[in-house]
């Protein structure tokens, strides 16, 4: 076990926690220990207030209104887009499309790019680490057009089998759909290297960054991806916000996804012309308040600094991993070192089903996820029906790690194992 304990976190966690109203709540009389951040994050008051402010001060529908409130709301909305573009270092904010979540993002690419670019016999390469949201759309599209899906395996440490990946790419590939960071195991894939290899093999590369953008610096230009998707609700922003980034050349050559108001430039009974990027892909009234919340969340994350957040989370992993592994009957899945991983820790306790674990944890005030984490192919690969998953964020503390360890002992006591 090669975990080295990191230096003390340089985050002022107490101050950060004070920004999150929910963190002072109690659950069944115990302080809330929220360790389900890979599912969704909590929200700071800066985000909650940015949203209320729109409703209370200048709400109006965006883009089409020739009056001040509409102009103000449009400005804040488009500023949010610029902030997101800045966060991921997109070459242009026109390449950032607001969607509900990462899932809609993948589907947008599948419908608007995939249906025209994948045909019978084409190969899609993906991995056993994918979340259902980056797997089922491709599986279904492949069935529809007659393409083939190759699923690259992991090794026993939860790392992608690069040899297998290379072999699959060599067989021919139209699309590589790959997760940047596994929500099930916390593994970070070396996407930059992989994207280069996939491009050399002729692939278009879609990166699922739902677990990356919230936790680590992500630079789309450095990664060399073609499409990248993420969800706002996992990064301090409200559910309903999220983004697809795509290269201009790809986006411009794609058909639209959803049709309707705002994404058009001109409609006649026989013909429709599309609006420019990015609006071509934003049909109907956007979730503009959610997007504005995302803008405020980006500000918050940038101010704290994503590199420092990542460091903080690894500090918690280095603290909790050995403590969990020392408990008899506990099996931890995924990387056991701090290299190329994030603050996701998946484990099982022998003799207790993860759902029972989570129920007992809840009674201790500890919120963790138990289940397949929308990773059924991965669960099958691990040979378990489900795992218990604790996942950290910038506001978590070593005391909360202690509560987690304490809850494991409590569960074992109840079940007498």
């Amino acid at each position, binding site marked *: 076990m090669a975990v080295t304990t990191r230096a003390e976190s340089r985050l002022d966690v107490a101050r950060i926690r004070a920004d999150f109203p929910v963190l002072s709540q109690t659950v069944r009389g115990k302080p809330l220990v929220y360790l389900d951040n890979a599912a969704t994050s909590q929200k700071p008051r800066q985000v909650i207030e940015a949203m209320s402010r729109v409703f209370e001060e200048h709400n109006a529908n965006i883009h089409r209104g020739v009056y001040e409130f509409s102009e103000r709301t449009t400005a804040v909305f488009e500023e949010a887009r610029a902030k997101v573009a800045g966060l991921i270092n997109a070459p242009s904010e026109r390449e950032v499309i607001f969607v509900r979540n990462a899932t809609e993002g993948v589907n947008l690419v599948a419908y608007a790019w995939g249906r025209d670019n994948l045909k019978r016999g084409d190969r899609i390469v993906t991995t056993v680490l994918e979340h259902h949201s980056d797997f089922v759309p491709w599986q279904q599209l492949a069935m529809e057009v007659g393409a083939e899906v190759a699923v690259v395996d992991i090794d026993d440490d939860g790392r992608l089998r690069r040899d297998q990946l290379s072999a699959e790419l060599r067989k021919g590939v139209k699309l590589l759909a790959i997760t940047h960071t596994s929500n099930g195991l916390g593994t970070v894939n070396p996407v930059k290297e992989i994207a280069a290899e996939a491009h050399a093999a002729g692939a278009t590369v879609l990166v699922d960054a739902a677990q990356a953008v919230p936790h680590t610096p992500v630079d789309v230009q450095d990664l060399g991806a073609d499409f990248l998707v993420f969800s706002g609700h996992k990064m301090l922003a409200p559910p309903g916000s999220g983004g697809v980034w795509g290269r201009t050349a790809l986006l411009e050559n794609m058909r639209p996804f959803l049709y309707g108001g705002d994404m058009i430039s001109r409609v006649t009974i026989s013909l429709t012309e599309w609006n420019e990027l990015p609006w071509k892909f934003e049909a109907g009234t956007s979730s503009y308040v959610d997007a504005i919340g995302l803008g405020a969340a980006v500000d918050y994350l940038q101010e704290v600094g994503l590199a420092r957040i990542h460091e903080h989370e690894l500090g918690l992993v280095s603290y909790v991993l050995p403590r969990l592994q020392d408990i008899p009957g506990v099996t931890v899945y995924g990387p056991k070192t701090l290299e190329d991983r994030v603050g996701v820790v998946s484990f099982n306790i022998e003799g207790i*089903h993860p*759902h*029972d674990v989570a*129920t*007992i944890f809840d009674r201790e005030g500890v919120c963790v996820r138990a289940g397949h984490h929308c990773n*059924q192919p991965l669960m099958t690969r691990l040979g378990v*029906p489900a795992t218990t998953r604790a996942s950290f964020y910038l506001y978590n503390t070593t005391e909360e790690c202690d509560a987690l360890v304490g809850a494991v002992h409590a569960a074992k006591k*109840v079940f007498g194992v």
Partner: protein
Amino acid sequence: MDDMYRDYILDHYKNPRNSGPLEGATHTYHDSNPLCGDELTMQLRISDGHVDDVRFIGKGCAISQASASILTEEVKGKTLDEVKAIDRDHVLANLGIPISPARVKCALLGLKALKGAAWGLTAWPGEEVKAK
């Protein structure tokens, strides 16, 4: 703590009654709860319209397995019509513990499989005992 995991439940989980395949089963139904990976097969041997014997094969969480075990004890000797009439509230009450909303599906998996068997189904058509 022990409100949801009373000795009664844990005992049925660790020492399931009527567990394992049933010889001469006349009615068999398998169901599962993909969210947590719970699996359950209920087998009935019906003669003269009565449950002559019942067994289940399952794996999964304590709630689902204990609930199935408790159910098998209850239905032995009952008529097929009586079995068909058992409802979700009855099963939840029988467990004698508060079941949180997220665990209701676990608690009812045994009932779902039992009903599937009793009605002689091969697949579950409706949503009668599906938890919301």
